[in-house]
């Protein structure tokens, strides 16, 4: 048992730190740390910087111009970039579709799409959930009917994150109603500018249009855009979900959130002393920090197992639950910390270059918005209820 990184891993960490110090634009890290809105161009800028270094395909093997990093290196990279306030890597093309194409796509699909993902030629979004198919994803109804050399797609997807920026969508569609619901699902790649596609923004409770509805009316999709075999899409979808769940613990986000919480609670005065010195508040901060310390090690245990070649299993469900609960508690404490100034909501403050002065402490409004926005953490990517179900079946065998 040795809890420390090896010398090679420490050297790698230093290399990542040096790279961030030299190449992460302060304009971007200021926005991330200040809770400001990131634009499409912001994400693209950061992707391009990483790609120039060869570090954009974090989870990709070297043969596809990825980093070839193992689980520990990926973890170090995630930890360092989050701590530095780098924008997150938009996961849809890089962490979701990319691995699916590598494993199940045709050579033509790999050759065409993978470089375009790295170069930022395509912005992918995810067409999984539907209004009637959330936790019960296999009940999806968006339909693709074969017509010669095309599929005709009709139906609706929802919760499509950043779909407003995307020129491509990967979709789970129903190609058969025979057998179990899981058996008639296919995995299709669709151009967002195809006739018959309509994107409607959904405004969330924090006031942001982060997700969308995507409607398909008689959308024609060439059959070569089918990934793998028809009616085998559920297998690919499950494979994708295991990749979606890498970094599911969100340790880096939690650490960044905790240090922001301590800073904010150190600046807020209550009863003549900083709030962080108030024993009632300090106890709650300590409690969540203690939980985070343990969870970070649970995460490392899983990562070490993965680096040793074990496939991630139901452990990721534990990390999803504990990781999201911890981050949500940090969000709740940060909201509590800003006191009466949690209430004002002046949307334009979140825009870069806005002349609007913050109302009260600058951290106040982003704290409230983050609290509301991050209620999603325990809902998306398989709700925490679904994760508990997985644990009770796969680990407890109940």
């Amino acid at each position, binding site marked *: 048992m040795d809890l420390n990184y090896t010398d090679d891993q420490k050297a790698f960490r230093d290399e990542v730190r040096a790279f961030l110090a030299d190449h992460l634009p302060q304009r971007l890290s200021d926005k991330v740390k200040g809770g400001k809105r990131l634009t499409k161009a912001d994400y693209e800028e950061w992707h391009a910087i990483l790609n120039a270094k060869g570090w954009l395909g974090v989870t990709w093997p070297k043969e596809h111009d990825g980093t070839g990093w193992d689980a520990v290196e990926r973890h170090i990279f995630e930890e360092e970039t989050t701590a530095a306030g780098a924008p997150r890597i938009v996961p849809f093309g890089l962490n979701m579709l990319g691995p699916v194409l590598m494993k199940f796509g045709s050579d033509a699909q790999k050759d065409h799409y993978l470089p375009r993902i790295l170069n930022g030629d395509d912005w992918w979004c995810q067409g999984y959930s539907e209004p*009637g198919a959330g*936790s019960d994803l296999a009940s999806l109804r968006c339909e693709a009917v074969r017509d010669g050399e095309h599929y005709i797609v009709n139906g609706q997807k929802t919760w499509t994150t950043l779909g407003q920026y995307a020129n491509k969508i990967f979709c789970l569609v129903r190609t058969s109603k025979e057998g179990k619901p899981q058996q008639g699902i296919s995995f299709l790649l669709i151009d967002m500018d195809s006739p018959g596609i309509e994107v409607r923004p959904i405004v969330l409770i924090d006031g942001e249009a982060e997700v969308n509805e995507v409607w398909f009316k008689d959308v024609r999709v060439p059959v070569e855009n089918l990934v793998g075999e028809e009616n085998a899409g559920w297998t690919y979808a499950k494979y994708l979900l295991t990749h979606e769940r890498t970094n599911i613990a969100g340790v880096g986000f939690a650490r960044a959130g905790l240090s922001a919480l301590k800073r904010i609670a150190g600046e807020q*005065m209550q009863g003549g002393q900083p709030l962080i010195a108030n024993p*009632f508040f300090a106890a709650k901060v300590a409690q969540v920090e203690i939980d985070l310390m343990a969870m970070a090690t649970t995460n490392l245990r899983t990562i070490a197992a993965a680096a040793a070649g074990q496939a991630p299993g139901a452990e990721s469900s534990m990390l999803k639950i504990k990781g999201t609960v911890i981050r949500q508690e940090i969000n709740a404490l940060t909201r509590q910390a800003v006191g009466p100034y949690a*209430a*004002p909501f002046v949307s334009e403050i979140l825009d870069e270059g806005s002349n609007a002065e913050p109302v009260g402490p600058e951290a106040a409004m982003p704290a*409230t918005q983050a609290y509301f926005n991050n209620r999603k953490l325990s809902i998306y990517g398989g709700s*925490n209820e679904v994760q508990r179900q997985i644990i009770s079946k796969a680990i407890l065998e109940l």
Partner: protein
Amino acid sequence: MNFQLTEERQMLQDGLRRYLSDTVTPEAIAAATDGATGLDAELWAGLTEMGVPGAMFTEEQGGFGGAGFDLMVVFEELGRAGAPVPLIESAVLAGGILAEVGHMDLVEEIIGGRIIGFAHGEPASRYDLAHVQTRAEKTDAGWHLTGAKAVVQHAPATDTVIVSARTGGDVTDQDGISLFLVPTAELHMRDYPLNGGGRAAEITLDTVVPDSAVLGETGAAYPLIAAANARATAAQCAEALGLMETIKHLTVDYLRQRKQFGQPIGKFQALQHRMADVLIEIEQARSAVINLCGHLDTDDCDMHVSATKNLIGRAARLVVEESIQMHGGIGMTQEYALGHFAKRLTMVDHRFGDADYHLERFIRLAAA
């Protein structure tokens, strides 16, 4: 022992519930919040016509209520409807103080629908009622007020505001605080919308008011402020209860309607048990509000204020988080009704002291 409402209060509750469910819509709330004053003028006129501001005052004061349970009935219904109206500010806070110092002409106008604001909290005061940095200096013309007031709810809808300022003592002393009646036009306001609806303003003061603007005795306003604040806290706790009731109905309906895995999700035992816990906490919240409203005019009032505000703060977080979680994605959207109620309920813990503040205060009061 009797937990039934009196016939008059029952009628008020029934009438209000009918009126508010016919009148308050998400569109009307959004329009008021985005408007210049933050006020739904039609709704306010309707409530005034029904005598709602009058229910905040005793017959002696020109009203027809004024007891804790009158506040409870009215604010629970306002909470059920999710309606942001300036009733706490104008009738409970400003009106309560004006009645206490004998400004019955203004009380009569408040009962008639006039909106007077209350500017007390400051950028650095957090929840400490005695923390007043705003200064009032005596001049030949009267009093020169300088300072800043924070998150003054419904200020843009007022024509006059009661402002607290220090005429003596140190920043956190209870002694030395005075109250002044200041025309809104004399204030510099920066107004903005609030999470959960309505508008508020940051106020900067640099104005001279005449001697006649002083309310009550100079330097002795703290007990007036504390008493009005206790009643306002009771009103806000009752409003929170109403918000919880609506959230409960929305969530139970959703558990019955939403089908996944071939059945309504309300058939899953995991969700049934959690919803049962939510129900228990809402009933706890109701009892806490009854405790507070029943003790508003007693010596135990302060302890009940802190007990109730603490419990409401804890219950509110549970109700908000569980209701969003059990709804799933739809509960995260601005368009669906839950979002507004969840945000409004969340903001309850950011006014008049949060759950921790009142836990600490309860411990202090209980030990005394």
